[in-house]
């Protein structure tokens, strides 16, 4: 299997120290922070320095590779750094340290080449709300150099396959449910036939039936087109069923990475019950899953 993504020692922090620059220069803090998840990054030189710092480390020296055609899952609590990682891969953020390459292209130096072969579906289905799915998808497809007439046909095909009524394709997005909007977001990504599809909690907030439909599309993309998929999710069952390998992130770090079966072996069964991914997650992160709609970091 060839390599689709190489993430090498990637570090990303947000915010800036509120200390005056001379105090930062003369070493009153170590300037690199400890970790994220809402915690102040500065440590080591007293509580005062930490209090005056608003640095949040979102991704902390993360490294992994993803093979071509693999479905790679990233699990983590809210604020664990999953969405930041996806934004770094999708050229929407620049890493402070480390490097990321997608099919051999560096995301910083060759961002245009990377953008041509990727697409992303985020937890917020971001659209021009007054425009219809057809108008939104035409806009999205044209940005990727696609022909209008061909796109119109494809839009109808894809959206009806995803369960949208034909009538809904021409009505404003604001009249659609969140689940429907999310399906349109998935269609937007499918239209451009990406080599790498980044799915940032694509099924959060969907009803069980819509969830299954989306999961079926993900599988089909991999099987029919060989698309590599990087998926973040809060749904442990979904991760278990869909992903070939899973990385568990906490406070910006990858704390475990393996196949779902191997991850489950990390925790011995309790009370005769088979270990689930959720058991592994809680054991490793010390946190329960929070099913919030959005991640803040």
């Amino acid at each position, binding site marked *: 299997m060839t390599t689709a993504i190489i993430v090498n020692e990637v570090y990303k922090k947000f915010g800036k120290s509120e200390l005056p620059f001379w105090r930062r220069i003369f070493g009153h803090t170590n300037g690199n922070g400890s970790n994220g998840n809402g915690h102040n990054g500065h440590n080591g030189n007293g509580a005062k320095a930490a209090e005056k710092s608003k640095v949040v480390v979102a991704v902390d020296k993360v490294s992994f590779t993803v093979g071509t055609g693999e479905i790679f899952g990233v699990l983590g609590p809210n604020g664990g750094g999953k969405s930041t990682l996806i934004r770094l891969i999708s050229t929407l*953020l620049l890493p402070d340290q480390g490097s990321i390459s997608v099919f051999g292209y560096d995301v910083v130096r060759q961002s*245009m080449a990377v953008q041509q072969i990727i697409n992303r579906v985020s937890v917020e289905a*971001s659209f021009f709300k007054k425009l219809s799915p057809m108008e939104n998808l035409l806009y999205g497809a044209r940005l990727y150099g696609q022909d209008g007439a061909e796109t119109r046909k494809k839009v109808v095909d894809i959206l009806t396959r995803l369960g949208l009524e034909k009538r809904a394709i021409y009505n404003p997005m604001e009249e659609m449910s969140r689940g429907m909007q999310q399906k349109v977001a998935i269609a*937007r990504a499918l239209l451009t036939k990406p080599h790498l599809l980044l799915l940032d909690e694509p099924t959060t907030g969907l009803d069980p039936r819509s969830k299954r439909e989306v999961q079926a599309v993900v599988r089909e993309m991999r099987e029919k087109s060989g698309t590599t998929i990087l998926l973040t999710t809060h749904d442990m069952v979904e991760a278990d069923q869909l992903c070939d390998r899973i990385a568990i992130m906490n406070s910006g770090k990858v704390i475990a990475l393996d196949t779902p079966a191997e991850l489950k072996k990390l925790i011995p069964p309790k009370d005769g019950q088979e270990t689930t991914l959720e058991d592994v997650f809680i054991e490793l992160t010390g946190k329960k899953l929070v099913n919030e709609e959005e991640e803040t970091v």
Partner: protein
Amino acid sequence: MTTLTYQIRASYAFVERNINLIKRYWSWELVWLVYSIADSLAVSFIGLGVGKLGGGNPSTADTNYLVIYLLIGTLVWRFLSTIFYWITNLIGIERWEGTIEYTLMAPVRRITHMAGQTFFAISYSLFFTGMVLLATALVFKIDLSKANLLGGTLMLLAGSFSFVGIGVMASVLPLLFPERGEQMTHVFIALLLLVSGIYYPVDVLPPVLQKLAVLSPATYVLEGTRRTLLEGLPTWDLWQYIWPVLLMGAVLIPSGLWVFSMAERYAKKTGKLHRNG
């Protein structure tokens, strides 16, 4: 597919999207048109009222000339400011809708992005200003027998490029300041309105502001348009007004693109793309 075809299609994406947005927000456009017509009429009526001002003494002012002088000011300003707002909307509307990450993640060169938005902005501003002109022409008996209409249009088009450059620079504000950036762009337009002689000759301004007027492309566009429409200045004599605005456009557009690329890099460094205003 060649790179050129790819970029032309991508550029057309912005034109088509804006046309679709106007269709969907047609009621807002109608309100804005009514406001613009009322604004142009209100300012132009000052010309008719001048004769009754000054303590009841009959004025020697040529009211027809004054009305057209003010009307040209409002129309030129409507044209240039509409271009400016559509260009700054490059980011503002994406912030509003929450689509900015999708647009900036697409494999589209920023110059392609700007070209599509510019083509739309100039075309729509011409159409919109034309509608205001038609409506005001129904109210005032405008004598345009001496007017050089071709020259006036040429002057407007030449001046539009420098406003595109200013608009691109201003569009970084919504990029850098998600919450209030769009409102901050009004400062550009307010300063240009003050110094460019929209409703009065520039030489009535204090010396400091007169010096600033030299740097405003609107000053040349207004002077050139007024001379072609009021005095019938031949098109070839417009060059004295056209070359300064073309020069400003040649400096402002590349500078604007450079400023925008720096701002985009900063936004990607600091994570400002994610926050929707």
